[in-house]
C-alpha cells in the first residue's frame, strides 16, 4: 500500500518514511476512537492502521462503547467545543465519566504509544498505566464553550502531548506540546482516484445535470456552518452573468435533527433560482462525489466555520479551482490567488465564480498549483510520516 505512493511523491520522499519508521520498529501503538466507520477519523484510521503495520509497528485500533445517552453527551460536547455555545443534557459530565470507566475496563491500553482521537474517549487518560499518551483533536477548539472546555481540559493536561489540525486551533492555556498535523486524503480511494470522463458524464446526466454547461459544486452536509444559503446567494449572483448550474451534494444525517431543517431552508432559498440541484445521497456515495468534483468548473466550500474541510483538498487534487471560506483549516489548503480563492461573503464568492468561469487559463493554472500543494501537504503518506515523527519525539528519553 505504501509503495504505491512512490509514483506520486518520488522515491526519496518515500524512502524517508521508511527511514523514520526504522527508528520505531517493534514499538506498539494503539489508536482509540468512537466509531468503526462513518466520518473522517474512521476513514483515515482504516487506511493508517494497515500502513503502520506495513512499516513494522505493532498497531491496533479499538473503538469505545457507549449508549445513546453517552453519544448525545459527546455530540453536544462536539458542538459546544466548535461553536462556543452549549446545550448540555443534565448530568452530562457524570454520564461521560461513567462510560470512560466502563471502557477503561474493557480496552487494554498497555502500549508504548496510545493515540486517543477526539473528545469522546479523551477521559480514558485517567486510567493510564504505561506508555506515552497523545490526544489527537480533529475539531476546531479555538473558541470552545467554557464549561465543556474546562471539564475536558482537566483530562487533556494529563496527556504527554496533543495534535491539532491547524495552528489556528492552538491553545494558549495548555502547557503540553501541541503538534500541528493537518488531516489528509487517500489518492487511491474511490473518492479520489482517476475516473473516466464517461463515468463523470454518466453520473452527471443521472442527476439531470448537463455536462456541457458550466457547473459549480459544493459537497457538504446541510449544516449552517457550511453556509448553504450563502452558496445559493453566491450562485444567484453568478447566474446574472453566466448560465451555470449548481450542485449542492449532501448526505442525510439521521442523528442530526438540524440537518433536515437546514435542508428545508436551503430548498426554500433555491426555489426561485434556476438550475440548482440539491442532492441528498447516501454517506458512501464516493464515486458520485468524485464525479461531481471532476465534472465541475469550480468547486466551492463556502464554510463559515470549518474543522479542516477535506473536500477542499479532494477537489484540489482533481485540479479544480476551489473557492473556500476564509475559516478554520481552509486557509492552510487555499493560498489566496495561488492555489484557490478565499472568501468571506457571498458577494466575494460571486466575484471569484465569475472570474474563474470567464478565465479557463486561470482555472488551469490554479488547478495545477492546487494539485501540487495537495501532493506536497495533504496526502495520507505525509500524515503517516507526521504521526511517526510525533511518536518518535514522544518516545525520546522514555
Amino acid at each position, binding site marked *: 500500500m505504501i509503495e504505491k505512493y512512490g509514483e506520486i511523491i518520488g522515491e526519496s520522499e518515500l*524512502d524517508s518514511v521508511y527511514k523514520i519508521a526504522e527508528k520505531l520498529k517493534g514499538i506498539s501503538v494503539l489508536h482509540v476512537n468512537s466509531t468503526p466507520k462513518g466520518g473522517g477519523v474512521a476513514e483515515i484510521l482504516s487506511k493508517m492502521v494497515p500502513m503502520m503495520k506495513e512499516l513494522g509497528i505493532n498497531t491496533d485500533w479499538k473503538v469505545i462503547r457507549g449508549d445513546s445517552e453517552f453519544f448525545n453527551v459527546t455530540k453536544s460536547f462536539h458542538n459546544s467545543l466548535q461553536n462556543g455555545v452549549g446545550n448540555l443534557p443534565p448530568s452530562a459530565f457524570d454520564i461521560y465519566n461513567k462510560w470512560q470507566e466502563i471502557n477503561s475496563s474493557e480496552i487494554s491500553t498497555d502500549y508504548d504509544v496510545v493515540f486517543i482521537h477526539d473528545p469522546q474517549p479523551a477521559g480514558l487518560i485517567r486510567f493510564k498505566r504505561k506508555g506515552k499518551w497523545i490526544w489527537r483533536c480533529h475539531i476546531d477548539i479555538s473558541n470552545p464553550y467554557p464549561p465543556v472546555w474546562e471539564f475536558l481540559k482537566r483530562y487533556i493536561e494529563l496527556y504527554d502531548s496533543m495534535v491539532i489540525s491547524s495552528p489556528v486551533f492552538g491553545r494558549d492555556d495548555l502547557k503540553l*506540546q501541541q503538534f500541528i498535523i493537518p488531516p489528509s486524503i487517500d489518492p487511491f480511494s474511490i473518492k479520489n482516484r482517476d475516473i473516466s470522463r464517461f463515468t463523470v458524464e454518466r453520473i452527471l446526466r443521472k442527476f439531470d445535470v448537463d455536462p456541457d454547461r458550466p457547473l459549480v459544486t459544493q459537497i457538504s452536509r446541510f449544516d449552517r456552518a457550511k453556509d448553504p444559503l450563502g452558496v445559493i446567494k453566491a450562485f444567484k449572483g453568478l447566474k446574472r452573468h453566466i448560465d451555470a448550474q449548481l450542485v449542492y451534494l449532501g448526505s442525510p444525517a439521521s442523528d442530526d435533527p438540524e440537518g433536515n431543517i437546514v435542508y428545508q431552508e436551503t430548498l426554500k432559498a433555491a426555489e426561485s433560482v434556476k438550475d440548482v440541484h440539491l442532492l441528498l445521497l447516501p454517506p458512501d456515495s464516493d464515486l458520485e462525489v468524485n464525479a461531481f468534483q471532476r465534472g465541475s468548473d469550480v468547486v466551492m466550500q463556502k464554510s463559515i466555520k470549518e474543522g479542516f474541510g477535506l473536500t477542499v483538498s479532494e477537489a484540489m487534487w482533481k485540479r479544480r479551482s476551489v473557492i473556500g471560506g476564509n475559516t478554520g483549516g481552509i486557509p492552510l489548503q487555499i493560498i489566496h*490567488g495561488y492555489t484557490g480563492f478565499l472568501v468571506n461573503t457571498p458577494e466575494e464568492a460571486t466575484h471569484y465564480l465569475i472570474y474563474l468561469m470567464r478565465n479557463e487559463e486561470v482555472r488551469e493554472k490554479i488547478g495545477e498549483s492546487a494539485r501540487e500543494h495537495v501532493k506536497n501537504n495533504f496526502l495520507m503518506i505525509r500524515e503517516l510520516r507526521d504521526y511517526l515523527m510525533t511518536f518518535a519525539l514522544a518516545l525520546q528519553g522514555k
Partner: protein
Amino acid sequence: MTKEFLDAKARQPFEFYAAYYPPIYAGKKALTIEDLIDGLRKVDGFSVFYHVFHPVFSSHVIPYDLHNDFAFWIRDELHDPSLAYRVSDVEAVEPKTVEQVREDIINILEESDNKNKGKPFHFNTCRPVVFDTGIRAHSIGELIDILSNITMRSIVYHLVFRRVMGYAETNDFSAWLIREFQADKVAQSISMLDPQTYNSEEKLRSDILSTLEKVIFS
C-alpha cells in the same frame, strides 16, 4: 589536475543525514507589529528557524515573491508591502545564526510605525527528526554527484539547520571540504550562499551545483 582533485579519497566520508521538522504550536499569536516583536523576543530559536528557513521546502507554500512567513503576514494582513519586503530580505548568510536573524528582524520591525491589526499570526516552533540516509561521499566528485539528486531535506539539514541553530560554526559541507581536502576556495563558495532568500528548494540545489562547478572548473 581537476580530475585528481575531484577523485581524491577522504579519510572520513561525508555522511548524509536528513531531517523533518514537525511543527508545534509555540503558544503565541500576534495581531500587530508590536505583538510580532514581542513574540519574536519570546519564542525559541526553532521557531525562528521554522518561519525564516523552513519556507525553502516546497511543502511550505508561501507566495513565491516573499521569503519568509513573517513577511507574508505583514503584507497580507497588515497591508504593509514595504515593511514586508525588508523583513523578507533579511540577511542570513554564514556565519549568521537564528539569534542574529531574530535580532535583525526585530530591529527592522522596531523602525515601523504600522499600527494595523490583522488576522493573527500563529507562532509555530518545531523539533527536528533526524535520520541517516545511509548515503556517503568519499570524494569531492562523489559529493557533487550526490548533491545533484539527494533529498533537499538532507541538503538543508547540512547546509542550513546545523549552522543556523549553532550546532556547527560553518555548514557541514564546507567544514568537510576544509577538513579533508583543505579546499578552502570551494568551501568558501558554498558558505557564501544565503539560504533564507530561497523559497524553492530546487533553485537552491542548482545554485549550489553551479557555484561548485564555477569554482572547480575555473
